[in-house]
Every structure is written in structure tokens, then in C-alpha cells.
């Protein structure tokens, strides 16, 4: 399918591809790639991340050795491993075609078995993700080997909860975050059974439940149960049968026992604390809300925070006590901001309460935006050549400097300080420790920040550190085998609140700081726990009066903002009795960046290998018999693709060679401008306005250039030269000639989708195309086209969708356009209204009917993700000389998402001339997304 989709737009006549929507994967950065050959991996990296590549090579080999022991299996191929020093670079990968969301930490793809992952600051986390993906490699390679050795041709793909759950289980230890997810699921009664786990396929909840099930399986049947399952994978048609063959137990028994064990484990926790909504006042309810920043200097209490209620993260402001909420910045709705990094970053409001600083991704790097909170204007838009990713800005008390955490092109995440007056940037740390989440002290003499530059940092734990300013000496504020994150200074600078899982659950803690009068040294108290929530409390922010704080709490599968009072006595009890020592120079990095074995290193050489080879044969009552083969090849990085199509269409009257269709295309997408060129020879029948097919033989080539301005906008230019022999005997003429076609178009798309189609945003495409006969200079046609679609969100899951589309072609041989059918003018037969001019307007109300639909058949249960309803009004016409009258229809329909582009659409429409309504209902059904 992908071959055809890729190549056919380039060889079709102009108009079907006029409106190719979709967001762009932009290659903002061009890399000089190299390859490192380790015993089991071909590791691809770019020169800027040489240090990371060496570390990744060692980690990969160590993980390989570990997994070999767990699986009892060696992978019989070299594993391609592609490493990126930043998630921003990773998002530009061409290894897989889709857009990579920020939550994707890495992936293994199936065509070439490649593993790709970025360093997002933390080396232990990088290693965990690497292990996770390699577990997928081992799982599928072992299953392939076992099925192969038993001659089983039927693919038996393990359930997603098992593959992801095992990858989580073996990639790292069970942690407090996993506990939080499971405990919340228990208390919210969202512990889905194994049988229904596919309802949450792909969600983080599924990952953690899968991990929990795998842990339970290992506890019940032994750690080698997975090796036994994979070794016996040939013994059943599905996982339930394999599981029973290996353990003797039905899967339902595992399901029941696992659920019981989880309840037994977590329900007693009710004595340890409360859910956030029972322990504190909940300030937000809808969607996802996190990282509050208190607005100081105002009469009322207000806070800003990241909010996501409808698929876009934006910055919102809520005023207390009335709870009035308004949008401060449209955030990811704005084409200028691709991501606000709500999970990794935080908002910063200056001491005067007049300016907001935040980091956001825009055009291939993060930038620092400073917004005037009074006017809403962006007063600074800062980007730094040496800093690719930015998080957690913090204002100096005088409002003249900003400190932030930034990652360079080599993957080092360090602390930076930017002087707004002088425009100078100073790097405060410079190593591979993950320094982030920093906050300036009210006195301006310290930064508190989070880092893994501690003894337990190697296992992914974080502690709090202080940096003395301006000297830069680093002190270790907290320590221990737990994570202390999200620090926040109290307004008077005497306390630091932070989130810590030192008691097994992330709760808000506070410690007191005091400066010794004699020495001037800082002393600290023991941390005091301020909240006792059952799930997790994060990102505290002190209220102005110092007697309460806001925090982000996790409950019922989402993050919300809560406020809790702080008893002054609790803080008064804290005694600063501990001195704060200097941080160790090298806690554990030295062991990791030790000299690496001298692996063979070479420049990247493009080597093509097969992605897809498929053949097909089809019989169509109108088009006759056709068959063909398609091949797709690409290089390891996915930057170069070749597509080949060889097909034959029976029914040609001039022999077998005449019925051949041959096409090839070469796509280059390794740089900012995507280039695709190709050659083709086609003999095919095309729809005609006469209700019959005309035959056109075309031999030629094309070149197409695409320049994406951003994720949402692009310019496309296309040039083609072809010899066309068009049999239009129905028109009473034959048209032969060497035709040159030019086309230029501009496309914008920022629509937000649900499984059945767009729900919010807008997209449009407009352009101009011209075709000229090269020998006679006769202008065949000039075509202008425009397509505008806008989706007005009415509620979380309903929208009013509108489309206006117009096309006009004129010249000696104009293009003809057709209306009618499910995708254009409903109520009229498929492609039944023809003309070289066309206009179409659609308005459609889209609303939910059923979210999950399970139908039990004798052979099993089929689950459908979404059943949606629609009510619509269509109007349009296609004409040659006289417009005639508008043709319209009104109707309603349903859409059922079957997966991917397979959306079943059924519409019933009655025609109208807008004066009266027809009595006959016309039914259209089709597979495809809504417009």
C-alpha cells in the first residue's frame, strides 16, 4: 500500500493530488552520519554525538549480553541502532514515516529491524529505553526462529500488553511511578482484565499493567517463564493457547489471580494516605493540567499552568477563589509553537508578576519566549546556536537574567544563564549529568536544581543540588536512594518544597535552609512531608502567603492541580542541623565515559535494502484483470527511497507489451527540501465525464520539490514531461503530444484528528497548474484550485466541519473534475457530475455515538474503537459553460473506525435544490476518513 501511495500521486494527472494534506516532518538539521561496528550492532550516529555513540555502543553490548541470557537466544543478525542526541533531532528521523510524538522514547521498526532512540537528558533513562527496544528485538527474533524451526508460516504476534509489558519489566526495576499507575487504577476501579487489555492498547496504562502482569507471571511461574513461552510459541494459535500449553493454566486463571494480587497489594495503602481529591482542594477537573506557577504581585491569587483539554497543550490562567480560567497562550494551537514540553518543562513568572517565560519547540529547536502578561505580547523570542533543547526557565529576582536547562547538539543537558541586558549566554555546567529543573533563589545567590550527579544517579535517581552564584560551586542538598524533583523556593527563601518518593510514593516535602552567621555556610533541615497522597504529588508552587501551596496530583489517570494548606507549625519545627557538602566531582560518569574499545568506525555509506516486495492480482468488472508487483527499497536512515511498480492491465487491444505499466520513483528526504523524481510508462483507463473510461498512454518523467516551512506549512513545485496519447474518441478526437506540466501549490494543515477524521484546526491548499504541448507550444490547460477546510470544535468530541473547494481548468484540453459520492457531493452517484469548473461546499456536524463497540461473532469478538455520527448539508456543481443550478443534499450518517485509514462511512442523503427536498434517500458507503 505504501508503495502505491508514494508513487501514484506522482504519475497521476494533476488534479487528484491537488489536495495532499498532512503535517510535515521537517529536516531542520542535516547530519554527517557515521557508523560504528560493535560485535552485535551497527551503530549510526552523527559527529556531534561522538561521546554519546561510544557510551551507547557499550550499553548496547552489555544489554545484548544480558538479554541473551534471559532469552537464551542470540540474534542472528547485526542490529542497526540509530542514536540521536536530542528528542528534537529524533523527531526528524525518516526511519519511520509518521510524526513522532514527544512521548515516544524510542522505537523498533519491523522492515529492517532497526532500533532508534534519543538521549533526552538522562543516560540511565537512555539505557532503559535502549534495553526496552532490544527486548522487542529479542522477542520477535526468538519467535521468528521458533516458528521457523517448526515450519509454522502463520504469524503469531504476541499481544501488545505482553511485548510492551515484558520490555518494561526486563528493562528496569519496578518503580514508584509504576506503583502510582497501578495503585490509581485499583482505587479508580480501572484495572482492566487481560481479556480487555486491547481497549487500552498503546496507552501508558497498558505498558504499566503489562509490566505488572509480567512481574506477576515471573513471580508465579519463575523468571524463565518468558523463555519457555517463546520456545513453545509454535504450540498454539494465540497467546492463550500457548500460555496454557506451557503452564497448564488457562489465561483466565492468570487474569483472575493477577487482579486479586494487585488488589491485595494496593488496597491496604488506603491507611497510608488519601487520593489527592480527598486530601486537598482540586482546582482543575477537565483534561490534563500540570506545573502551576503562582502569579505574584496581584490582588487576587492566580496561577498559570499547562493545560490540555482538547488535544492541544496551552498555557492557562486560573484565578482563585472563583476559579475563572482563561487562555494565556494558545500554545500548540499556534503554528509558531509545536510543543510546550508540559511534562519536562515549567513556567516562570518574574518577581513583579509582569512577564512569563516558557520554552517551546519551534522549527527544529527550542526557543525561550518571554511574554508580557499585561498585553499578551511576546517581548522576547530567544534561540541559541549552541542549545538545541530548553526546559525550565527561571527568572533572577531582579528580572534581568534567565537561568534554564539546555541540551547541546552532543546530548549534554546542562545549566545556562542568559543576561537579557547584554544578550550573553553563560554555560554553568558542562558534562553528561542530567542537570535540569532549576529555580533561582529569592535572594539571587543560589540556584536549586535537580541532577543525577549523585551516587544513586546511575540507577536513575535524582537529588537536589545548589549552585552558588556567581561562583558556580555545586553543593548536594539531598541524598539517598530515591528521587527528589521539582524544587520550589518559598517566597521568603527559607524553605524549598519538592516532590520526593523517599517513602515509596511521590509526595510534597519541604526542607528549611539557614545561613550560619559565623561562617556564612548553608545548613539544611531534614525534609518534612507535607502531603500524604496515595498516588503522586508533583511540582509544588508556594502561594504568596507561604501558608499553602499548589501541586500537581495524579488521580483517575490524569494530572490535576490541587491546593493544600501548610501548617506553619510544621515548617517551624524544621531545624537546619545538617551542613550541605560539596557535590562529588564524579559520581559515576567516569565509569561510563572510560575509554571505549576501538570499534571500527567509518563514514555512513548509503546501502539500499528491500522494504517491501509484494504482488497482487485483481479482477474488476469494469477495469478487467490487472496484476503486478511492487518493490520498495531504502537505506538504513530512511533518507533515500526507491519505488518500482510493474503491472499489467488486461484488455489492451495491442498486445501484452502495450498493457504494461512500469514506474519508478526516487525519494530523497534527508535534507530540508524533499525531492522526488521518477519515470513511468502507463497505459490506463481513466474516468471520463461521459460515464465511461478513456484510455491514456503516458510515458515520461517528473521532478517534484517540497519545501516545508514548518510542521504545518509547505510549498510544492512539480515539473513533468510526458508523451501522452489520449484516446478521447468519445469526444471525437485523439490527443497526442509531448506535454510539459508545471504545478505549484501551498498547503497548510494543523488539524487535530480522532480515529474517524479531523476534529479541530484548519487546513487548506491552493495552487496553479499548467500543461503545454512541447512541440506545438499549444497550451493544453491552465488549472487553478483551492481547498479550504475548517473544523470548529463544539465540545471535547464533537465538531462542525466545513469545506469549500473550487477548481477551474481552461484551455484547449481542459482538465475535468467530477462530483458525486461519499467524499464530495452525497446523494449523487459516484463521479456523476463532470465539468472543467467545479465548486463544492460541505458542512457537517460530527458527534460521538459509541466509544467502544464489541460484536461477538461465532468465530470471536470484534472490537471497534469509535462509532461516530454525522449530519450534513452539501452543495456544489461541476459545469462547462453554464453553471446551471446548485445541487445539494442533506442527510446523516455513521462512521466506524476499523483501524488506520479503514473508516467505514455510511451516509443517507436526500437531494435538494434548496427550494424543496427530494423524497428518495440515496445511500453512499465508502472506506476512508472524513474530509
Amino acid at each position, binding site marked *: 500500500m505504501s508503495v502505491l501511495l508514494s508513487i501514484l500521486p506522482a504519475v497521476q494527472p494533476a488534479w487528484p493530488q491537488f489536495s495532499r494534506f498532512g503535517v510535515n516532518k521537517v529536516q531542520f538539521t542535516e547530519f554527517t552520519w557515521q557508523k560504528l561496528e560493535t560485535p552485535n550492532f551497527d551503530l549510526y550516529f552523527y559527529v556531534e554525538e561522538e561521546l554519546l555513540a561510544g557510551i551507547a555502543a557499550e550499553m548496547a553490548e552489555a544489554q545484548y549480553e544480558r538479554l*541473551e541470557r534471559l532469552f*537464551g537466544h542470540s540474534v542472528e543478525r547485526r542490529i542497526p541502532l540509530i542514536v540521536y542526541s536530542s528528542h528534537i533531532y529524533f523527531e526528524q528521523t525518516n526511519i519511520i514515516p509518521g510524526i513522532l510524538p514527544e512521548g515516544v522514547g524510542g522505537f523498533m521498526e519491523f522492515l529492517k529491524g532497526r532500533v532508534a532512540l534519543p538521549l533526552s537528558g538522562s543516560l540511565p533513562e537512555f539505557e532503559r529505553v535502549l534495553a526496552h527496544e532490544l527486548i522487542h528485538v529479542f522477542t520477535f527474533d526468538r519467535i521468528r526462529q521458533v516458528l521457523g*524451526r517448526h*515450519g509454522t508460516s502463520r504469524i503469531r504476534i504476541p499481544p501488545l500488553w505482553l511485548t510492551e509489558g515484558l520490555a518494561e519489566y526486563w528493562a528496569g526495576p519496578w518503580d514508584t511511578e509504576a506503583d502510582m499507575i497501578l495503585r490509581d487504577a485499583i482505587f479508580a476501579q480501572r484495572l482492566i482484565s487481560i481479556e480487555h487489555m486491547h481497549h487500552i492498547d498503546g496507552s501508558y496504562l497498558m505498558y504499566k499493567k503489562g509490566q505488572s502482569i509480567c512481574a506477576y507471571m515471573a513471580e508465579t*511461574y519463575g523468571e524463565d517463564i518468558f523463555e519457555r513461552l517463546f520456545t513453545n510459541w509454535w504450540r498454539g494459535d494465540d497467546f492463550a493457547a500457548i500460555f496454557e500449553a506451557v*503452564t497448564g493454566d488457562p489465561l483466565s486463571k492468570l487474569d483472575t489471580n493477577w487482579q486479586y494480587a494487585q488488589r491485595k497489594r494496593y488496597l491496604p495503602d488506603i491507611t497510608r494516605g488519601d487520593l489527592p481529591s480527598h486530601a486537598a482542594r482540586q482546582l482543575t477537573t477537565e483534561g490534563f493540567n500540570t506545573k502551576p506557577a503562582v502569579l505574584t504581585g496581584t490582588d487576587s491569587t492566580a496561577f498559570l499552568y499547562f493545560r490540555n483539554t482538547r488535544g492541544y497543550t496551552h498555557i492557562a490562567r486560573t484565578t482563585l477563589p472563583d476559579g475563572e480560567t482563561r487562555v494565556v497562550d494558545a500554545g500548540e494551537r499556534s503554528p509558531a509553537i509545536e510543543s510546550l514540553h508540559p511534562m519536562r518543562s515549567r513556567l516562570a513568572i518574574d518577581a513583579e508578576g509582569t512577564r512569563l517565560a516558557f520554552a517551546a519547540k519551534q522549527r527544529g529547536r527550542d526557543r525561550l519566549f518571554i511574554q508580557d502578561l499585561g498585553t499578551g505580547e511576546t517581548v522576547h523570542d530567544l534561540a541559541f546556536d549552541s542549545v538545541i533543547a530548553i526546559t525550565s526557565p527561571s527568572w533572577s529576582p531582579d528580572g534581568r537574567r534567565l537561568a534554564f536547562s539546555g541540551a547541546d547538539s552532543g546530548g549534554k543537558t546542562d545549566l545556562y544563564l542568559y543576561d537579557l541586558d547584554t544578550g550573553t549566554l553563560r554555560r554553568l555546567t558542562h558534562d553528561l549529568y542530567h542537570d535540569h529543573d532549576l529555580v533561582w533563589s529569592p535572594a539571587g545567590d543560589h540556584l536549586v536544581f535537580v541532577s543525577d550527579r549523585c551516587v544513586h544517579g546511575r540507577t536513575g535517581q535524582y537529588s537536589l543540588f545548589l549552585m552558588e552564584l556567581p561562583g558556580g560551586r555545586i553543593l548536594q542538598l539531598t541524598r539517598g536512594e530515591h528521587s527528589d524533583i521539582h524544587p520550589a523556593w518559598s517566597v521568603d527563601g527559607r524553605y524549598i518544597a519538592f516532590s520526593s518518593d523517599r517513602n515509596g510514593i511521590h509526595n510534597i516535602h519541604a526542607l528549611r535552609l539557614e545561613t550560619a552567621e559565623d561562617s556564612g555556610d548553608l545548613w539544611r533541615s531534614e525534609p518534612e512531608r507535607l502531603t500524604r497522597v496515595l498516588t503522586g504529588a508533583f511540582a509544588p508552587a508556594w502561594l504568596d502567603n507561604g501558608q499553602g501551596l499548589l501541586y500537581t496530583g495524579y488521580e483517575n489517570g490524569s494530572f490535576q492541580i490541587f491546593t493544600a494548606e501548610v501548617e506553619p507549625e510544621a515548617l517551624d519545627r524544621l531545624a537546619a542541623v545538617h551542613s550541605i557538602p560539596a557535590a562529588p566531582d564524579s559520581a559515576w560518569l567516569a565509569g561510563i565515559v572510560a575509554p571505549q574499545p576501538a570499534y571500527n568506525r567509518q563514514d555512513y555509506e548509503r546501502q539500499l535494502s528491500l522494504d517491501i516486495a509484494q504482488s497482487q492480482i485483481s479482477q474488476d468488472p469494469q477495469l478487467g484483470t490487472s496484476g503486478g508487483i511492487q518493490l520498495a527499497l531504502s537505506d538504513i536512515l530512511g533518507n533515500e527511497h526507491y519505488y518500482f511498480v510493474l503491472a499489467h492491465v488486461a484488455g489492451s487491444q495491442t498486445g501484452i507489451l502495450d498493457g504494461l505499466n512500469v514506474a519508478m520513483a526516487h525519494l530523497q528526504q534527508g535534507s530540508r527540501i524533499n525531492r522526488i523524481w521518477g519515470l513511468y510508462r502507463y497505459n490506463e483507463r481513466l474516468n471520463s465525464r461521459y460515464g465511461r473510461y478513456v484510455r491514456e498512454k503516458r510515458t515520461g518523467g517528473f521532478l517534484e520539490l517540497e519545501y516545508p516551512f514548518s510542521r504545518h506549512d509547505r510549498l510544492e513545485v512539480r515539473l513533468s514531461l510526458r508523451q501522452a496519447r489520449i484516446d478521447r474518441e468519445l469526444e471525437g478526437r485523439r490527443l497526442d503530444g509531448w506535454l510539459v506540466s508545471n504545478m505549484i501549490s501551498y498547503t497548510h494543515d494543523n488539524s487535530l484528528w480522532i480515529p474517524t477524521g479531523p476534529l479541530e484546526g484548519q487546513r487548506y491548499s491552493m495552487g496553479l497548474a499548467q500543461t503545454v504541448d512541447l512541440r506545438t507550444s499549444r497550451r493544453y490547460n491552465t488549472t487553478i484550485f483551492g481547498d479550504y477546510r475548517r473544523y470548529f470544535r463544539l465540545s471535547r468530541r464533537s465538531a462542525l466541519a466545513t469545506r469549500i473547494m473550487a477548481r477551474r481548468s481552461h484551455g484547449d484540453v481542459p482538465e475535468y473534475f467530477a462530483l458525486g459520492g461519499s467524499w464530495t457531493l452525497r446523494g449523487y452517484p459516484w463521479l456523476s457530475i463532470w465539468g472543467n469548473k467545479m465548486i463544492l461546499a460541505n458542512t457537517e456536524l460530527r458527534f460521538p455515538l459509541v466509544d467502544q463497540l464489541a460484536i461477538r461473532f461465532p468465530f470471536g469478538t470484534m472490537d471497534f474503537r469509535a462509532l461516530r455520527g454525522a449530519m450534513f448539508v452539501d452543495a456544489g456543481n461541476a459545469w462547462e459553460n453554464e453553471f446551471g443550478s446548485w445541487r445539494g443534499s442533506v442527510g446523516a450518517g455513521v462512521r466506524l473506525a476499523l483501524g488506520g485509514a479503514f473508516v467505514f462511512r455510511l451516509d443517507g442523503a436526500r437531494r435538494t435544490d434548496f427550494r424543496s427536498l427530494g423524497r428518495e434517500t440515496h445511500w453512499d458507503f465508502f472506506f476512508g476518513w472524513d474530509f
Partner: protein
Amino acid sequence: MVFLAVPFTWLLLLAGCASPLLYLPSEDGEARCRQDDRLEVPEPPLRQLWRVDLGRPTMGAPVVAGPVILLSTTHPELVALERATGERLGALSYTGALASPPVHHGHQVMAPILGTEGRLQVLDRRSAQLVWESKGRFSALLVVSADTLLAAREDGTLLALRLQDGQQYWRADLQDRVWGGLAADATTVYAGTAHGKLWALDRHDGRKRWQADVESAVRTRPLLLDSLVYVGTGAGNLVAVHQSTGKPGWSTALGALPAPELVAGGEVIVAGAADRRLYAIEPADGRLRWRFETGGVIRGGAAVTPRTAYVGSSDGYLYAVDLNSGARVWSQRLDGPVLVPVTLTAGMLVAVSERGSVYAFTAE
């Protein structure tokens, strides 16, 4: 019988011979065999004697039955090769997948066949005739002890059946599945289960003598040596238990999951593991004598001569390791990973690669 008659006829035609398929009855063959049996097991260096392509990987180790080598492929079929030449004598297809490799005793071949109900089938390999069969899903490697066939079923029962006709001598309920296999001496049957229990049963009546807890799944066939019984476990340990009492002897950690067969030789226990290593362990106290690292996981067991341990690895090599020092003395690359145990017989070492190539080596 219908099952036997149809494929048997077909195979006769396929093989182009009129004699029974899994048997070499000629005087010449028997004579060659008697001659071969006087040979000693080969010590390295070895040379390739012959190679045959079965086209399929095999289950378990090659079995030497007089002048014939029997191999069970994953097809599933039982293939007979002439030991001296590798010539294919014939094959017998099974109608269902095999739960574990067939075992051979005398002229009888016993195979646990999966399927909706499952059965244990005993054939006379000379005639390919069914001798008897027993219904049930059998899970583990079978073992023959004197006139008794010991077989474990998936429902956790252990059966002692008369080899001659399948009549049940006794039945014991182990309450758990046997994965690694069974072992027996003159008085006792040993069985390790998936939940880490090692059972000792009276060989004559099946009564429990003792039960020991070895903490995780028993993944190897119990090895009986002197007064101890040894098993490899899912936790990657080699565990010794006293044969008479079931009391723990010692436990030593291997680097990973053990290969399913332990062997004794040269005063050590030799165990392969998924950490690529072959371990030589002192039987008395579990101390490590040596370990030898290959280039891939070891899933098939080793075979030992008085001086040498042979083992195949997923790196595609066959290794010969000195039993005293653990040093490599010979190696040979095959055409694919070696994931099943190698077999030693008089004058010959037989190994099978995952590509389905059977190699016979003899001393240079």
C-alpha cells in the same frame, strides 16, 4: 493403523526401497556396526566424515541405534541415516507435532505426540508398525528403565508403563508439570517440575520417597552421579540434592539458563548455559573448575569423552574443550547455529545445525 499405512506406503515409494525404513537389516550393515562399536569415542582433532542436509532443524540430540542414526525433525518426522555413510534410509512422518524428541530403546521408538488429545506412540522401527499407544498429552523427555517406560503427562501425573505393551505399572501425581525430563536408577525415579520441586519416587510402585524444593523450575534432566542428583534450574543455578534423602547438597550459580542436558565426565559435571559459557563444576562441592566461553548461547547439551567435552553454540561453531583445563582444543564452523545437543558414539561425533545439516566427524 490408517495413519501408519498411508504415510508408510508413500514414504516407501519416496525412499525407493522395499526394506523397512528406519532400520538397516543387511548383514553388511550389522557387520559394519559391530566393527564400529569397537572404536573409541573420538578425541580431537576431528575431520568431517559426512554431511547430510535434512532441510529442517531437529528436536533433541541425534540418537544412535546400532548402525542407524535417528533424528526427529520439526516437520515432524523421524529420519534414519546410515551411521557409516549418512545415507538416508527412510523417514516416518508423524501426524501431530512432537512434544519432545522420541526416545529409542532396542527396536522401539517412543514419541509423545501433541494434538487435541495427544498420545504416546510406540513403534517398531523395523516394521514401522504401531506396537502400542497411550492416550494423553505427554510433556517431558521420556526415559526407559529396564522394562519400564517412564513418561510425564501435562496434567502433572507420572506414568510407569510396561515397555512391551504399555500396560500401566503405576501412576504418581506430581501436581505439577515436568519440563526438564526424568531420570531413573535401579530403585528410584527422579523428576523435576516447573514450580521447582524435585521428586524421588520408588521405581517399582511410584511411591514418594522424598520431595525437595530447588526454588525455581527444573530445566534439565536430573543427572545421577555417586550419591547426589543434579539439576539445572530456571534461576540459572546448578543444584545438588542427596539421592537418598532429598536434603540439599549445594547450589552454584551458572551465568544464565542452563542447557537441558547435564553430563558427567573427567570428574566434573559439564553444563552449557545461555551466557555463552560451558561450565565444569566439581560434583562434590559445586566449585567451578573452569568455564569456557563460546560466541553464542548454548542451548544444546554437551557430550564428553574421557578427555574432551564437545558442545555446539548458537555462533555456529562446534567446540572441543579439554576437560581438565577448559582450553579449546578444536573447533569447527557449521552452516548455522547449533541449538540441540551433540551426540557421541563409537568413532563418531554427530551434530546438527539449525539449517538442518547433519554433520558426522571422526578422529583424524
